[in-house]
């Protein structure tokens, strides 16, 4: 099984992987406590609420009694998760009895948050002092900004000459203007800059939220290199997701790290920056507030727009150029209308993607086809999203069959050995050569009548040497 490098929705895993000290620091912020609570699996959520006001450790045995026998596996998952996040700590007493205690900081802050409600460290500016854009305008802005970020990645695929638009993230000299820079985009686009990596494909096929998480994760992972504490960024991002969409918040309420962070976030369309005569402020967009949604609920995502029919035709309700480019990655775009793209999926259109972009490699095929199906399913238009399956079965079946078609042939460089001397004992030479190759597991084909054999190239030198010796 090939290794999956992108796991789009593992932000909490990242939080969990932080060192204990950092985690405890994070829990100083009540908003993070709430965000963590939201992210938990249902049973774990229930345990946290159940234990919220219990100060003493709870024996593992009595906790097990809370669930019916067939719920035990879910129980384990819940407990594991809570320990991982250091919400619970495990203690084993002298009688070897296990018990669990809640992280005190987490407990206190969550209590506070639930009782008094969250109070953000800053209040929104009165609406009469600033000109606020409408929510629609703000959403448009966010999506446009986001597409500006991802569009170049998509267009890489279509300009095989290597002549590509300068990324938004690079200045004229080619230096990164944004801390995300190379790390993210080298991941998506190969260093030569002429084509997408297979991860790039996956990235483009992910939904916006997943993409967002992906970039934000890289952003946090790189924080240390920039001399910024990742925990402070995490806490700021989580806090941001509790802000109200479209309200103005004064920039002077932010500390220095936050101020530089917010500029980066503006590039991604998470916030919109505006400047008045005296003051500057930021407006969180939907993208920012969905950060916390991503954490907990993967089912609420942006409305899908793709209809796939049983005749392999594809209708995408979209006005976005980016979507059109994404369609082109794997489909034949036939008509472009003001708010609809009409295309068709066929074997050629899928295989083309490889020729242009991805090098042939089984693991990559797997990803590619897997992600295309996933993409079609996840972006299903509401009209077809209610149906099961959202993508017609015959289409997904066929895509998988095309995929397996590619796997039927395996190519390996090889050498043909021919013209064995036709003397009486030459048969032995041929047989011996076959045996030798077989011994190394390099014999691909033999024909004893014609006295020909094909051997993997990697054995060529040894083979030649061997034959010379036999003579």
């Amino acid at each position, binding site marked *: 099984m090939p290794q999956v490098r992108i796991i789009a929705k593992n932000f909490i895993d990242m939080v969990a992987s932080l060192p204990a000290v950092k985690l405890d620091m994070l829990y100083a912020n009540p908003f993070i406590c709430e965000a963590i609570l939201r992210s938990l699996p249902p049973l774990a959520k229930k345990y946290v609420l159940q234990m919220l006001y219990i100060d003493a450790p709870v024996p593992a045995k009595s906790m097990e009694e809370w669930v019916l026998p067939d719920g035990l596996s879910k129980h384990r998952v819940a407990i594991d998760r809570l320990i991982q996040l250091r919400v619970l700590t495990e203690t084993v007493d002298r009688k070897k009895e296990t018990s669990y205690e809640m992280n005190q900081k987490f407990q206190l802050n969550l209590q506070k948050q639930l009782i008094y409600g969250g109070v953000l460290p800053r209040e929104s500016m009165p609406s009469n002092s600033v000109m606020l854009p409408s929510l629609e305008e703000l959403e448009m802005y966010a999506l446009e900004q986001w597409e500006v970020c991802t569009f170049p990645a998509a267009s890489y695929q279509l300009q095989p000459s290597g002549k590509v638009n300068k990324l938004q993230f690079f200045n004229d000299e080619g230096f990164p203007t944004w801390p995300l820079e190379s790390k993210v985009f080298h991941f998506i686009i190969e260093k030569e800059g002429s084509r997408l990596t297979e991860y790039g494909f996956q990235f483009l096929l992910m939904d916006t939220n997943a993409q967002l998480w992906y970039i934000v994760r890289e952003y946090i992972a790189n924080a240390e290199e920039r001399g910024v504490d990742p925990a402070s960024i995490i806490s700021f991002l989580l806090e941001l997701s509790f802000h109200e969409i479209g309200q103005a918040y004064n920039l002077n309420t932010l500390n220095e790290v936050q101020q530089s962070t917010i500029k980066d976030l503006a590039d991604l369309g998470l916030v919109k920056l505006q400047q008045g005569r005296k003051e500057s402020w930021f407006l969180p967009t939907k993208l920012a507030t969905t950060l916390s949604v991503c954490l907990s609920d993967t089912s609420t995502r942006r409305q899908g727009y793709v209809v796939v029919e049983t*005749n392999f035709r594809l209708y995408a309700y979209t006005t976005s150029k980016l979507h059109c480019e994404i369609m082109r990655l794997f489909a034949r775009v036939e008509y472009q*209308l*003001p708010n609809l793209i*009409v295309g068709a999926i066929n074997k050629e259109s899928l295989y083309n993607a490889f020729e242009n972009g991805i090098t042939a490699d089984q693991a990559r095929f797997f990803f590619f086809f897997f992600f295309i199906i996933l993409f079609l399913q996840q972006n299903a238009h509401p009209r077809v999203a209610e149906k099961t399956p959202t993508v017609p*079965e*015959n289409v997904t079946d066929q895509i998988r069959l095309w995929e397996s078609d590619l796997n039927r042939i395996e190519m390996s460089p090889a050498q043909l050995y021919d013209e064995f001397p036709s003397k009486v004992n030459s048969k032995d030479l041929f047989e011996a050569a076959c045996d030798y190759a077989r011994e190394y597991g390099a014999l691909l084909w033999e024909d004893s009548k014609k006295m020909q054999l094909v051997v993997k190239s990697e054995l060529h030198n040894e083979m030649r040497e061997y034959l010379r010796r036999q003579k």
Partner: protein
Amino acid sequence: PTRLGPKTTLEEGVTDLQILVHHILLYRQNNENTKAKLTQGDNKGRPSKKHKSSKVLISNLMLCNLMLLCKDDRHRSGMIEDGNAYFAREDADEDSNLDGEPKKRDFTKLELKLDHTNRPLWACADGRIFLETFSPLYKQAYDFLIAIAEPVCRPESMHEYNLTPHSLYAAVSVGLETETIITVLNKLSKTKLPKEMIDFIHGSTANYGKVKLVLKKNRYFIESPFPEVLKKLLKDEVIGKARISTETAHGADGFTISKSLNEIGGGHDDLLSRARSGIIVLPCGAGKSLVGVSAACRIKKSCLCLATNAVSVDQWAFQFKLWSTIKDEHICRFTSDSKERFRGNVGVVVTTYNMVAFGGKRSEESEKIIEEIRNREWGLLLMDEVHVVPAHMFRKVISITKSHCKLGLTATLVREDERITDLNFLIGPKLYEANWLDLVKGGFIANVQCAEVWCPMTKEFFAEYLKKENSKKKQALYVMNPNKFRACEFLIQFHERERGDKIIVFADNLFALTEYAMKLRKPMIYGATSHVERTKILEAFKTGKDVNTIFLSKVGDNSIDIPEANVIIQISSHAGSRRQEAQRLGRILRAKGRLEDRMAGGKEEYNAFFYSLVSTDTQEMYYSTKRQQFLIDQGYSFKVLSCILWFVDLFAI
């Protein structure tokens, strides 16, 4: 196309007369417009491909035939050009398919209307129309589009249609006016209509329907509410000569032409109904026979019904008895085996195309019957399975018989050789084409589960298949693939035993048919099977408990009515014929069982099965994809069963 000069005798009848008129126009236009045509092609930005001259001729011929006459020269030339542009585009489409290169059509500049979400369709400048089936206005939009455009594909959520000159002629012929078409289309469209489309509609419809050819008292009249058109026609040498009386006795609205110039124009009989001729496309099992019979009942005149073979003649005669109040003695069958004489004044004659078109010497008895058919003025000429009959046969049939109204019936208006467009001028425009998926949803026809069964070639067969010297035996090899035989055997057993189904196995290849049928001990019907034996086998299949599977060659593709069957297994077929695939599927489309069981989620959601057995890695795979195209366009989907042999082995244990 056959060249018909002015010397052609007018005795050949109506069609040839029409063609004649139009040929004359055609030759003139061709000369006038050669230049215009080429430049027009360039203007439209479509590659003006070099046509084979015959193709241009055909298309022009049909166009001319359909538009009959033109108002003024400028208009006329415009039409012809549009026609060419359309055909050129078709060529280009084919080319682009060959290359696999997409042709990108960017219409993003079209202006979206503010309330576009409430409107159901998009219209593109090249005539393509997309229709949302989930729009509240779907039903209205669908009825309208089916009248003015040609359906391209109709799966569940989004339909595609093409505006073509033919489809627009059909629209005019059912009474839609140019302005109505444009207004309604505009109302339904999410965007402003592209100017090109408006021009195209104007160009295609402005000249159509000005003149009618009417049969009265066995003579043809040309009628038109536009005197100037008639005058123009009269100026034509051939038509002028063919005219019977030089005085237009009935005002400017008609004149008479006839076989002989000596005849005198008849009176104005308003008693004759002016039914419209045309073709109705309904999937098999949806009630084609009933449509035919009720059309005959509506017209209430003598009806000549043409079928493709003797078995279906019997079936048609039966249908008339079943659905109408006509007395048995008024229905007569005329086949090589049964020659029932026509008694009384009115009645229904059921016969085959071959019997009527037969050119050789006939027996005295059939000569009499043919003479009667020839001399009679038929109220309705009912033609079954019009898609299978070659155009020249039609021409002959239509020239022998005279009728007020021609009605063609078919399930699939596709032919691989695209000769189907000939029907447009031989019979009339397509009047109606049902949506298969809607009929399935309504429970009118069976919900068929289609499957393509992949049978890997056995090692030995594949080795032979790949040999160069066996290139002619390829078909035999992939049809006789032992794995395919096993799969076939398994499917028959499974459906007979587990479900008690009735199964038809189709094989085009006679050798395979006999081998399979003999090995599996099942009865079979092919070309050489006598009428008596056929009837016997079919009867046993329909009523008997012992005969649950029959093998049919391609004689079973059309119009053998076997309503009991609900499983089809196809082991060999005629290359990439979409029509054959659809026709065969049609054998099991008749809805069976209770309606509520058949609906989505019912206990028998699928109660009909269509298996196509394909030997993998052979030509058959390619053909199979091609064959399925028509059904896929109708919204059917084929499930690929790639591991059936695994089941075969499993059940063997």
